[in-house]
């Protein structure tokens, strides 16, 4: 009887992880050939008109992902880290409790709603979809991740180093920035890496903000833009074989990007020696 139970458990457990392995294999199977057969132009060209033979490239999506992920990180990281430092330094303040609740809520909320927020705040009043709006939406998605991981990392710094720093006459800001943050820097970097994977991989926040644009590689922050996940989402639904091919190639690129940052984040788990 126990044997049966064990067998069942093992089977279901393996079944549970099989999909992701298959996803990686399947996307590689359908996406890699697209890149191989199109070569470098896959990364540098615009998507071709649907009547063309060759599908063109996904340059707008790449450019958009690079720009929006980068700017979103620039906005989210300082904001979230400083807020986390506040929570550590003033743990009993009512604002700390409010930020924790806010962070948890932003983490749980459907990301499409975050896109809708920026839509109301930025797109409606200005009447245009912009890459900047997309960056803002992604930044909000990133904030709770950076906040939570930063808090965790700072809390794990042994108290004795903080006492030593104060005993040397360091002021509060010096203790925080010269000692606590620096000792915890790997944990902080890991939080940033994880937040970046989220920003890179999200589709829904961009639907209402960046909207997607494929006639130029990058029109600037004040023009609509695309991003890898957005492009994949939009192109896979079209009826055109050409563009669906691009979607598969783009899926593969996104997969590779994700796996790379995932591995980097893993390496950062090796802690500073205490």
């Amino acid at each position, binding site marked *: 009887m126990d044997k049966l139970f064990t067998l069942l458990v093992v089977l279901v457990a393996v079944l549970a992880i099989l999909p992701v392995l298959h996803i990686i294999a399947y996307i590689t199977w359908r996406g890699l050939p697209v890149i191989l057969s199109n070569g470098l132009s896959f990364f540098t060209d615009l998507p071709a008109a649907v009547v063309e033979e060759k599908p063109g490239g996904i340059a707008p999506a790449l450019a958009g992902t690079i720009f929006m992920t980068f700017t979103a990180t620039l906005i989210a990281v300082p904001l979230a880290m400083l807020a986390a430092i506040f929570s550590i330094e003033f743990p009993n303040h009512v604002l700390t409790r409010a930020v924790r609740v806010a962070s948890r809520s932003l983490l749980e909320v459907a990301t499409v709603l975050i896109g809708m927020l920026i839509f109301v705040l930025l797109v409606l009043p200005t009447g245009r979809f912009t890459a900047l709006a997309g960056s803002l939406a992604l930044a909000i998605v990133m904030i709770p991740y950076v906040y939570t991981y930063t808090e965790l990392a700072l809390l794990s710094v*042994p108290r004795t*180093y*903080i006492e030593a*720093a*104060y*005993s*040397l*006459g*360091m002021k509060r800001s010096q203790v925080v920035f010269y000692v606590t943050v620096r000792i915890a820097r790997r944990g902080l970097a890991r939080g940033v890496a994880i937040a970046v994977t989220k920003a890179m991989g999200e589709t829904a926040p961009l639907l209402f903000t960046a909207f997607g644009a494929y006639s130029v590689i990058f029109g600037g922050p004040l023009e609509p833009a695309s991003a890898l996940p957005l492009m994949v989402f939009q192109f896979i639904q079209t009826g055109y074989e050409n563009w669906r091919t691009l979607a598969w190639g783009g899926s593969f690129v996104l997969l590779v990007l994700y796996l790379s940052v995932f591995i980097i984040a893993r390496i950062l788990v090796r802690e500073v020696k205490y």
Partner: protein
Amino acid sequence: MVSPAIEVRNLKVRIGGRDILKDVSLRVPEATITAVMGPSGSGKTTFLKVLNRLIELVDGVEVSGEVKVFGMNIFDMNVYEVRRLFGMVFQIPNPFPHLSIYDNVAIGARINNVARSRKELDEVVRWALEKAMLWDEVKNRLRDPPWRLSGGQQQRLCLARALAMKPKILLLDEPTANIDPVNTAYLEDALRALRRDENVTIVIVTHIAHQALRVSDYIIMFYDGRIVEEGPTEEIAINPREDVTRRFLRGEI
């Protein structure tokens, strides 16, 4: 006593509703080594941390009373200025893990504006390491991280870090509790030299009676959050007034 370095009157400390220090009054003489001794839990560490106002980092702490350092009331001063009067060495060695040996010592000097140029900084670092009796052992590996050193060496490094501040008073919280006898001897030699050559006032907390007798000129006996007695070491050693002191010196408590 001619103008004490530290003068404490009616000091009371409560943490989380518990009385840790119950009406402490004492004086620490200048340019001497004063041992604050007593069994574990008698409030010695708390007392030390009141002096450099490190105790204020603890949640729910209440402090009342008067503490004067070189005639100045520390509770009226800017807390950071108070802390710069003191150098502290902690019970468990805690050199900053993310800084090299050199930088660990230098940071004390940098924060307190002791050195103005790179050359001056090098001199201060060397001086501090020499006084801590560690220079010869690390002079060729100043860029190494501190975890390559043994426990005893790390503690001497912490002493150097504190000395680089050029403090008027050195506070040591059971500094040899976790290190071997050889390094203990080094540390005690370093303290004697500091008192003799640099006129630093040293306050060392210890629960080892022998260490107090060996190293200090002046003794303050703590028990259960109160001062039991204080006086020059020779007097206390030969003829302690109180029973508690006698039992402590005999190793009974």
